[in-house]
């Protein structure tokens, strides 16, 4: 996994609550057996007016000028500012892959749906939870004439914005460390292999019916 330490980038304000993963990457793009190729269809039904299909040339698509991602101020963005319950709905990890491939490294929102939040950490996308009032304030600035630049420092758990006090965020220490180091998730669990084996032996004795069809 790609580590996340320090990132500086432009913020795109997506002012909608309950953004679900069906919007982040619509179902017709989930047919791929690969981990790549999802970026160009991020928010497909919102970025384009015509219906998206796998293999459709993005240069021949009808662009929805009203959608914030198509606003000239928000090009080359890498930080997404969202509203409550971001990433709700389907468990599709393709949503995280699409965001990353599009160039988004960090999502800032007042709350996230559980599965999406977990999926972020497995891929080096940093989800930052910030209080509603501060989010409101950030939306105000990000929607202003000049696009908002933010420096995200995971080590110090802070967001730096020019001419503003640093904003600090909470993150579970156990989630921060693997992200900073870009640790292999499966490798981390394999360090507990003996424990898993011992548990399995006890579990099989206690509940043999679970293992009856092995």
């Amino acid at each position, binding site marked *: 996994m790609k580590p996340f330490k320090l990132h500086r980038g432009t913020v795109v304000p997506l002012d*909608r*609550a*309950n953004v*679900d993963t*069906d*919007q982040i990457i*619509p*179902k017709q793009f*989930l*047919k*791929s*057996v*690969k*981990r790549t190729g999802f970026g160009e269809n991020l928010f497909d*039904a919102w970025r384009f007016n015509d*219906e*998206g299909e*796998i293999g459709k040339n993005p240069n021949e698509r009808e662009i929805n000028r009203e959608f914030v991602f198509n606003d000239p101020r928000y090009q080359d963005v890498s930080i997404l500012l969202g*509203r*409550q*319950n971001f990433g*709700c*709905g*389907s*468990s*599709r*990890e*393709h949503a*995280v892959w699409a965001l990353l491939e599009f160039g988004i490294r960090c999502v800032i929102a007042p*709350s*996230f*749906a559980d*599965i999406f939040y*977990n*999926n972020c950490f*497995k891929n080096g996308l940093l989800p930052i939870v910030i209080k509603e009032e501060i989010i409101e304030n950030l939306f105000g600035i990000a929607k202003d004439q000049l696009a908002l630049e933010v420096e995200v420092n995971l080590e110090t758990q802070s967001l730096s914005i020019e001419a503003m006090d640093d904003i600090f965020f909470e993150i579970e*220490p*156990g*989630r921060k*460390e*693997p992200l900073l180091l870009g640790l292999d*998730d*499966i490798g*981390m*669990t*394999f360090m*507990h*292999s003996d*424990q*898993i084996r011992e*548990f*399995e032996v006890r579990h099989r004795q*206690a*509940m*043999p*019916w*679970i293992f*009856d*069809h*092995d």
Partner: protein
Amino acid sequence: MNKTLYDKVWDAHVVGQRSDGTILYIDQHLLHEVTSPQAFEGLRAAGRSPWRLGANLATPDHNVPTQNRAAGIQGIDDPIAREQVMTLDRNCNDFGIRQFDITDRRQGIVHVIGPEQGATLPGTTVVCGDSHTSTHGAFAALALGIGTSEVEHVLATQCLVQVKSQNMRVEVKGGLQQGVYAKDVVLAIIRMLGTGGATGHAIEYTGSAVQSLSMEGRMTVCNMSIEAGARAGLVAFDDVTLGYLKGRPFAPSGDLLEKAEQYWRGLISDPDAEFDRSIELDADKLNPQVSWGTNPELVVDIDDVVPAPDIFDDPAKEETATRALKYMGLEPGTPITELRLDRVFIGSCTNSRIEDLRVAADVVRGRKVSSDLKSAIVVPGSGLVKAEAEQEGLDQIFSDAGFDWRDPGCSMCLAMNADRLYPEERAASTSNRNFEGRQGHLGRTHLVSPATAAASAIAGHLADPREFM
């Protein structure tokens, strides 16, 4: 003892601690074609193999067509979808994983076949790369939807790293009136909680109205836990659970069943268990529910009208409602039963089990689907549900009325196959999500129970099933 059911199942599966969470042992892993290929690819790249093969059961469901199934994989017209189903075949063969493939009569929606086979057992941990895995919690199991990285992690280690959720109790008191079903109960609960209202929680559904539900009904309720943001939904073990499991292929029998039952009887929350949150719902007063917006909390009673956005105090909700009305092509104040439909879908992991089909068939019997509809389809949840329904003559009732009787799969719930809505078409659907574009680009979904869907198909507009009983 003051443990909740969730605490008990959790505690029985703790292997150890990692810095970022608890390592939980996983008893049962269900796989399908959409969220597994990248996980198998990851295993291959790292030279890893599945930890315990027998824990896995796979079936293709999301992408399979619901017609022309005799042709097997070659019957899938879409080459990309076909490759995904073939990839599942290849992965299952290469790694030795049990699969009910597209030609197997036991094939179906993962969340239908797990319980149907008795692979979903009380007190177990069940995971699947699909958010509706919460369905299996109806068996007093801890069932979690996971992402593809976690699918790979479970395959490799037989464990999942989790942070423990808070406990929430949703008590449904009283009893359901005629024409009101499990689907109406869960829609009403999501309406109360909101789509993110149960985030970070595991919900236990209790109360007389839940206890009197069949396993099918309990699965419908648990299935939509995720639509309130819950990590899991559970129902305590009882005689109904045991009765359902007896005789199923993967369920224990004989002495092993007796031993299992002794353990299963303890799968209830202790009388003094503490819940972090509790809410109540009165089933006696519940009417059939219909979603009107673009998330599953935007729900009203069938005899109500399309609401105006200003009923919401929260400006964010008002904004969501305004957007939803525009997307759905609705005017506030319009009676729900005046909304004319283009299509009706009966199916999905929420409502495609035999009981759902029986209820819908009872409404349909001797009647005709409105000629205003472009299509009305019934998609059974599995090959075995289909066979059972046919044995009972339900297929004939549906066909006589003008419904299409299809083969099993996820179908129009998420429209990855050919079954879908076209722009601005309106549907009554027994599925679980009414998100923008969920059932097809610019499609408009109203979530309802099977009885309401059946009544609406006959009427040609959203209709109260009680008028058809």
